């Protein structure tokens, strides 16, 4: 078995955005092992300056096509925080419902279209259509349910339009909510079927463990497996948490690491992980029954340290959001939907918004002048927070799996990157990368 390794994956495929893997090893000695991001920078924080508070969502939604609802929600919450706007309970519920649709949309896309081919040894989902047509159709079905769901509540599946500071500019009808509920109910079985298919190939997930810090939101009042409200917490918090989201900079301490090119984030350790596994590790006991059931199917337990299990945690969350949403719809229908008008007047101020993107915790902060025009913006994106952790995983993964040979190692590393569900295009405006 050769111990000379030369991996240079220029643009990992089946991830959002561009990332490279570079590994050089001679005689078993690792000379270089890097995770790099050459995505074209897009300068959103600069571009929001001078724009009206009304347009912030429209602009920053375009940071990422896959988590556009999340960016919209985080920025809208930040605008509301800055301008001191209250949101009604109904709007709050509908927004969470909107947010859940994106969790399902994004997770099903990621697990179904991007990760599943790895598990079934296919280069993409296209050949899978011939190999496992039923499985592909099941995943398409779940994805379609998610998209119809966001179309209904967000106005579009990508780049929502119903979200405005203060509430929503269009709400669904009660009949539409009843129809959605039916659709969600009927998708439960399909979802379970998808889980079973993935379970049948779960053995192909590498056995790899690394202790790290897991950061996510935590909501205690009422206790909720939260994506939208709450404070920032981690498994390492020890008297210094939870942290109010306005102080997110204290958590995402950005620093330049001497042995790497990327700007990393750290809180209690030299790297941390965000995303489904982090949320699971911090909140697992609050999952819905179906969420718990799926976790059990895969033997996923709180405190898991295998990053590949992030994909399983995503399946768990898919089950959780579907089940929870059915209940939320019942709630909304019992109260009856009322049309609400929101009146907003601009004022000077600074505010932050934080929500859980499908791929991890996301922070937005803006400052406005008295006309409501933006003077400052700062955004910290989950994938950015995961880069350091990916690099640290690589450093442990390469020596452990080098014996499998160059091709298997490369494949394993690509899978590892994909396990994080990286959304590189949105993370890059913070990254500093040097080309080899």
């Amino acid at each position: 078995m050769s111990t000379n390794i030369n991996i240079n994956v220029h643009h990992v495929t089946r991830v959002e955005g561009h990332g490279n893997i570079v590994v050089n090893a001679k005689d078993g000695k690792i000379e270089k092992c890097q995770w790099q991001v050459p995505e074209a920078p897009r300068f959103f924080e600069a571009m929001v300056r001078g724009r009206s508070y009304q347009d912030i969502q429209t602009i920053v939604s375009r940071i990422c096509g896959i988590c556009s609802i999340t960016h919209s929600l985080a920025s809208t919450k930040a605008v509301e925080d800055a301008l001191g706007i209250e949101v009604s309970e109904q709007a709050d519920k509908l927004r969470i419902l909107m947010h859940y649709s994106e969790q399902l949309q994004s997770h099903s896309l990621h697990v179904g279209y991007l990760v599943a081919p790895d598990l079934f040894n296919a280069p993409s989902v296209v050949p899978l259509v011939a190999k496992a047509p039923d499985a592909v159709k099941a995943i398409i079905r779940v994805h379609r349910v998610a998209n119809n769901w966001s179309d209904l509540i967000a106005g579009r599946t990508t780049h929502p339009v119903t979200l405005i500071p203060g509430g929503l500019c269009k709400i669904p009808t009660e009949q539409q909510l009843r129809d959605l509920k039916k659709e969600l109910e009927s998708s439960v079985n399909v979802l379970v079927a998808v889980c079973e298919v993935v379970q049948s190939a779960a053995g192909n997930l590498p056995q790899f463990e690394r202790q790290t810090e897991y950061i996510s939101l935590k909501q205690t009042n009422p206790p909720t497996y939260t994506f939208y409200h709450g404070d920032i917490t981690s498994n390492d918090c020890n008297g210094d948490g939870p942290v109010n989201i306005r102080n997110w900079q204290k958590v995402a301490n950005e620093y330049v690491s001497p042995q790497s090119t990327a700007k990393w984030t750290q809180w209690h350790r030299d790297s941390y992980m965000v995303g489904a596994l982090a949320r699971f590790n911090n909140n697992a006991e609050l999952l819905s029954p179906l969420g718990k059931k799926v976790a059990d199917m895969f033997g996923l337990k709180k405190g898991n340290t295998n990053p590949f299990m992030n994909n399983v945690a995503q399946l768990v969350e898919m089950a959780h959001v579907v089940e929870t949403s059915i209940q939320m719809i019942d709630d909304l229908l019992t109260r009856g939907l009322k049309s609400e008008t929101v009146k907003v007047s601009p004022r000077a101020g600074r505010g932050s918004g934080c929500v859980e993107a499908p791929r991890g915790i996301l922070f937005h902060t803006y400052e406005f002048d008295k006309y409501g025009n933006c003077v400052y913006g700062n955004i910290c994106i989950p994938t950015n927070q995961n880069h350091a952790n990916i690099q640290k995983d690589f450093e442990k993964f390469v020596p452990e799996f080098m014996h499998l040979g160059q091709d298997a190692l490369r494949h394993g590393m690509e899978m590892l990157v994909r396990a994080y569900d990286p959304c590189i295009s949105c993370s890059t405006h913070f990254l500093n990368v040097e080309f080899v």
Partner: protein
Amino acid sequence: MTKPRVAIFDFACCEGCQLQIVNLEEEILDLINVVDVVEWREAMSEQSHEYDIALIEGSITRPEDEKRIEIIRSRCKILIALGSCATIGGINKLKNKFDLEEVKHCVYGKDAHMPHLETGMTKAVHEVVNVDYKIHGCPIDRKEFASVIRALLVGKKPVIPDYPVCVECKARENICRYEYNEICLGPIIRAGCGARCPSNGFRCFGCRGYVDNPNVEAAREVMDKYGLTVEDLRQKMVLFGCGQGPTV
């Protein structure tokens, strides 16, 4: 008949338009029945240099991207710009309103001079290479995408509207935003989206770019009538494809 080979490439963008192709759901199976998708980094590992149709997502922002798009152009028969970033420069063109050095400093601080942060003025694809067709929108409309592709496959010029969003907005029986004294760019923006935003109670913010001959002067003059200002109009007009045509 051999299936046309299609490749999908992305430049500076949010990849939301590619996502709309995925969002065709079941129709994706129909699509791959009639074309061979030979390269699509976001969705598959296969790669190829031989293709008939290239779908380009994203704006051109760096010199190396200009080279890349020229190579793609030289390899394909039909080049389609996919989505606002590609057709009009999209939201990325907002950057052109600022001094580039200042923009880099604003976002990257002292690290602004790292070589990979090199960035130029944002360009739409047609500002660099010849574009055969444009599928507008941020993101593109799945239905429109599907019908353009089908038209091309049977050898027909796809119907890409050159009339304002108001046409489709009226067809969807919406109450005009102006009736609430709110601003909307619908009257000068190209239709094709089914007036999605106004249908959802939101203004048209112009993601599809202007119609070929927008009456910008009229847009400016009607502001007053609705208690709005030219500055309000300007704020909205810069968002997508900033500087694409006549402005106020």
